[in-house]
């Protein structure tokens, strides 16, 4: 039973990380129908910025709390800026282009960013400071859930709730939904579509950055390549839950995380990813639009 719980928590941790990245995918897809392959790289850049800033701050002797707050801020700000810039440079010019062109642009962007970081920083793994302290009150349970797992769970929960609220109730949220459904009409009711799309990228990137920060200090090391694998997984999760649907992305992520954890725990981690992807294929065969995605019956 203990074992089950242990696996359950490690599944949750994975899940919430995937979720933080998957949300970005799903939001962008929802609004411009683009699989933004560069999103994983944003997550990576978030992590790197965090690493750099935190190191610099510690060197200049800031207190831990300050370091944590400022680092988080910096990561979010810069990741968001990158997200915004990418959209402006690589996607906006392709709004009216054939469907696959932005996809290629995204792949190119992803390759570019990876190598940009590789060259600007380094190719080897960098140690990432444990920004999340070991809470004493967690000590008794340390063998089941680490403090960082807890932190990850809590933070991502909060973030997701905030996001859902924003989408559902704020003007911006409404604008996003409208733009997602009919861009031309959105313009005609006075929504500044370009801004809305930018905001979407910014929000998505910010989430990814938080994810990057958390996972980096959980795992304790990063390099320029971490974005890719995490990205693919998160994207899988987003599709699993029904791409374009916010709750779907979260649900999908947790299902994926738990599947992997239990597959590893009870079967073997050799086939961890095989399980993940087979699950995806299965679910899509029975629910072609993902778990919470609307099966849009085209009104002929």
């Amino acid at each position: 039973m203990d074992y089950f719980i242990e696996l359950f928590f490690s599944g949750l941790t994975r899940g919430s990380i995937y979720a933080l990245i998957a949300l970005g995918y799903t939001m962008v897809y929802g609004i411009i129908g683009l699989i933004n392959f560069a999103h994983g790289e944003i997550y990576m850049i978030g992590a790197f910025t965090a690493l750099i800033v935190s190191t610099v701050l510690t060197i200049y002797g800031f207190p831990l709390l300050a370091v944590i707050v400022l680092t988080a801020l910096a990561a979010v700000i810069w990741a968001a800026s990158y997200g915004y810039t990418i959209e402006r440079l690589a996607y906006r010019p392709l709004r009216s282009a054939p469907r696959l062109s932005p996809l290629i642009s995204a792949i190119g962007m992803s390759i570019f960013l990876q190598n940009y970081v590789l060259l600007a920083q380094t190719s080897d793994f960098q140690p990432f400071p444990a920004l999340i302290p070991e809470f004493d009150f967690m000590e008794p349970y340390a063998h089941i859930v680490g403090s960082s797992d807890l932190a990850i769970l809590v933070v991502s929960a909060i973030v997701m709730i905030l996001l859902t609220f924003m989408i559902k109730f704020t003007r911006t949220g409404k604008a996003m939904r409208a733009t997602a459904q009919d861009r031309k009409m959105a313009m005609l009711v006075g929504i500044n579509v370009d801004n809305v799309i930018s905001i979407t990228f910014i929000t998505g990137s910010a989430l990814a950055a938080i994810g990057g920060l958390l996972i980096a200090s959980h795992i304790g090391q990063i390099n320029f390549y971490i974005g890719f694998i995490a990205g693919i997984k998160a994207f899988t999760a987003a599709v699993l839950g029904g791409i374009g649907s916010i709750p779907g992305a979260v649900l999908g992520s947790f299902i994926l995380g738990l599947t992997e954890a239990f597959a590893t725990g009870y079967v073997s981690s050799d086939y961890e990813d095989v399980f993940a992807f087979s699950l995806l294929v299965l679910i899509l065969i029975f629910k072609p639009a993902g778990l919470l995605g609307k099966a849009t019956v085209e009104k002929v």
Partner: protein
Amino acid sequence: MLELRQIDTFYGNIQALHEIDLKIEEGEIISLIGANGAGKSTTLMSISGITPPRYGEVLFKGKPIHELSPDKIVTLGICQVPEGRHIFPELTVSENLDMGAFLRKDKKGIEDDREYLYDLFPILKQRRNQPGGNLSGGEQQMLAMSRALMAHPQLLLLDEPSMGLAPLIIKQIFEIIEKINKEQNTTIFLVEQNANLALKIADRGYVLENGKIIMHDQADKLLVNKDVQKAYLGI
């Protein structure tokens, strides 16, 4: 109120509009008629800034607007009911109406207007919480107009509001067009295939033929004009 000067609009390299000149006075109903592909919708889109003119200018109350983005133009009080309705399919009827009032801040006013429109189109009140996507054509047309009216436009651009509607509905729609023109003194620019109806309620009319204005005159004069009758009234 609105003036188009020598508008040229392109799709890529295809030129859809050639030197369009057009004037609309406060409180008028102007109708623009023309064959398919004449460029009627394009004209409206050029006004709304979706396909901004490449050359020439658009003046609203004397100020140039052809370089503003669509949302800015809406803020000035120019709203369009586009061809094919463009309902937000996954938003409910009432949410669609809210989107119409996107730029408005006055909660109270919005409420009142919604009620007013529900009285105007009772069917919408029934379907209040149904996703707009699977309303039928007529229902959607009503919703589209109501949505535009939620914005309290000074100038309302209507693109083929009668398209694919049952005769009964068409009559209603046109009555309502006149009604809002009278009651709220909304200026109306009406694009129609159904020249008959359009010219009946319009003050003046323009005739568009492959991208050029070939004729404009008082509506009643156009109604009796031989060429117009032959080409657009099927008489």
